[in-house]
C-alpha cells in the first residue's frame, strides 16, 4: 500500500508544479487568449488539489463557478474584442520594478506568518470532513443572516447592472 501512497503523493506534487507553471504562463505569455486558457488550467489544477485534500464540494463549486462561468465570460470578452485576441502584447511596463518590490514585501510577510503559525496536526483535525449536508445546515442555520445579506447585495448588483445597461440604450436610441 505504501507504493500507492507514494504514487498519490507524486501525483499531488506534479499537479502543484503544473499549477505553478500555468500560473507563470498567465502573467508571462504575450497572447491574451493563451493567458486566459492558462488561467483556466490553473483553476482546474487548484480544483484537483482540493479533491486530493478531500474537499470535493469545494472542488466542484470551484470548477462550476470559476471555470464554467467566470472563465467563459473572460474568454467571451476577449473574443468579442477581436483584435485583442489575435494581437500579442507586452506583459511588462515601467512600473514592474516597483511591483516586484511590493510583492516581495508581501511574500516575506506571508512567509513569516506561515512559519510562525503552529499548525496543530491532531487526529481530530485529520479526520475532519465537511459534508455537503453540514455545509447546507450551517448556511441555513448559523450563518443564515450573512448569507441573506450577501444574496441581497448580489441582487442589488444585478439590478444595478441592468439599470446601467438600459440607460445607455435609451439615450442613444431613436426614441
Amino acid at each position, binding site marked *: *500500500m*505504501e*507504493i*500507492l501512497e507514494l504514487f498519490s503523493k507524486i501525483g499531488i506534487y506534479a499537479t502543484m508544479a503544473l499549477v505553478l507553471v500555468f500560473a507563470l504562463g498567465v502573467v508571462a505569455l504575450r497572447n491574451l*487568449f*493563451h493567458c486566459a*486558457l492558462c488561467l*483556466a488550467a490553473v483553476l*482546474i489544477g487548484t480544483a484537483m488539489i482540493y479533491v486530493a485534500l478531500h474537499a*470535493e*464540494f469545494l*472542488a*466542484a*463549486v470551484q*470548477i*462550476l463557478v470559476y*471555470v*464554467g*462561468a467566470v*472563465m*467563459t465570460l473572460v*474568454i*467571451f470578452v476577449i*473574443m*468579442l474584442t477581436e483584435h485583442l*485576441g*489575435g494581437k500579442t502584447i507586452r506583459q511588462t511596463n515601467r512600473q514592474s520594478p516597483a511591483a516586484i518590490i511590493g510583492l516581495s514585501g508581501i511574500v516575506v510577510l506571508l512567509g513569516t506568518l506561515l512559519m510562525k503559525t503552529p499548525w496543530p496536526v491532531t487526529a481530530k483535525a485529520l479526520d475532519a470532513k465537511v*459534508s*455537503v*449536508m453540514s455545509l447546507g445546515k450551517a448556511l441555513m442555520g448559523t450563518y443564515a443572516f450573512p448569507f441573506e445579506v450577501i444574496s441581497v447585495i448580489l441582487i442589488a448588483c444585478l439590478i444595478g447592472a441592468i439599470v446601467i445597461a438600459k440607460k445607455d440604450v435609451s439615450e442613444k436610441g431613436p426614441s
Partner: protein
Amino acid sequence: MSMPPFLRDIEFAVDLSLVNAKGWCLDLLGHFLPDWTVVLASIVISGVAILALGPLVMMYLTLLERKVIGRIQNRYGPNRVGKWGLLQPIADGIKMFTKEDIVPAQADKIVHFLAPVVIVVPALMVFLVVPFGERMTAVNLNIGLLYFIAVSSITTIPIFMGSWASRNKYSLLGGMRTAAQMISYEIPMTLSVVPVIMMSQSLSTNTIVMTQVGDLDLHWFIFTPWGLVGFLIYFLCAVAECNRPPFDLPEAESELVAGFHTEYSGMKFALFYMAEYMNAFTLCGIATTLFLGGWQGPFFPSWLWFFGKTFALICVMIWFRGTLPRFRVDQLMGFAWKFLLPLTLINIPVAALWFFVPERLAWLYSIAIFAVSFWGLVKLNCAFVPEKRIYPLAD
C-alpha cells in the same frame, strides 16, 4: 414485490454478473500478486471499461441515428457494410483515421491541436458518476450530481479554443453561439435538478436512484407533478446543451458551414463528434438517473433497464432531429430565459409543497399552480403582433 425466491436469486445473479466478473478477476490476481497491484487492477478494470464504453456507445449511436433518421425520411439508411450496416461505424472509423489532417496556415497550431483532445476529457470524465446498474457506479462520489454539472460545464472552453484557433469567421460565429447557448441553458438545467436533490436529500447519483424504490420498482420521480415538469425542462436543456436539433444553431449547416469545427478534418473532427455523442449519452443517462428511476424496474436486470431507458431518450432526441426545424437565435434565448427559467423557479416551491402536503391535495395544488403559471408564461411570451394595416386607397 411478490416473486418466488429462486426467480429472485436468478435475477440477482444476472443483475450482478458484470460486477461479479470483476470481483472474480481481482480474486484471481490476489492469489499471486501483491496487494497494491490488486487495487491498481481494480482501478484499471473500471477505467478501461469506461474508456471502451464511451467510444463504443458513440460509434453505435451514429449508426442508430442514421438508421432512425433514414426510417423517418422513408429510406433504409446504411445497409451495405455488414448485416444491417452493423459494421458501418468501423468503416467510418477507418476512413477518419486515414484522412488527411488539414491545419489552416493562419491557425494557432497548438490550440488548434489541443481543442479536440481536451473536449473528449470532460465527456469521458462524466461517465464516472453515471450509475449503469446496481453497484455499477464507477465512483460513488457523495457529490456525484454536482460533479456531473461542474465537469460538463467545462465543455465550452475547448469549443472556444477550436473556434478561436481556426481563424475562421464561421468558426468564430459558431463558437460565440455555442457559448451564449450553453451558458443560457445551463441555468434552467441546474435549477431543474434542485427538486430531485430536495426530495432525495443527497447529491450522490446512487442514493438518488435508491430513493426511487417503491412497489414494482416503479416509484420514479417522473410520476410526480414536479418530477414531470422537471424532467421536461431538463430534457429540453439537455438537447440544447449537446447542440442537437432543434437547438443546433452553433453548427447550423445552412448558415455556418459546420460552426466551430469547420476547419477540422480526419480524426480531430471525429473527436469533436465523439464528444458530442458521448455528451448526448451521458445527459440522457443522468436524466434517466434523476427522473426515470435509473436502474430501477421490474423483472429485467438493472443495467438492461438503465440502457433501455437511456436509449429510449436518445431515440426521442433523434426523433426531434427528424421532425423539428431549427430555432432562430432570439427564439432560442427567449425560450431559455423567459420560459424555462421562470418555470424551474416555480417548480422548486411546488416540490417543497409536495414534501409537506398530503399526496392527493398536493396533486391538486401543483396541477393548479402549473396550469396558471404555464398560461401566464405563454401569455407574457406572446410577441406583440400589430394588426395588419389595410390601405383602402392603395390599389
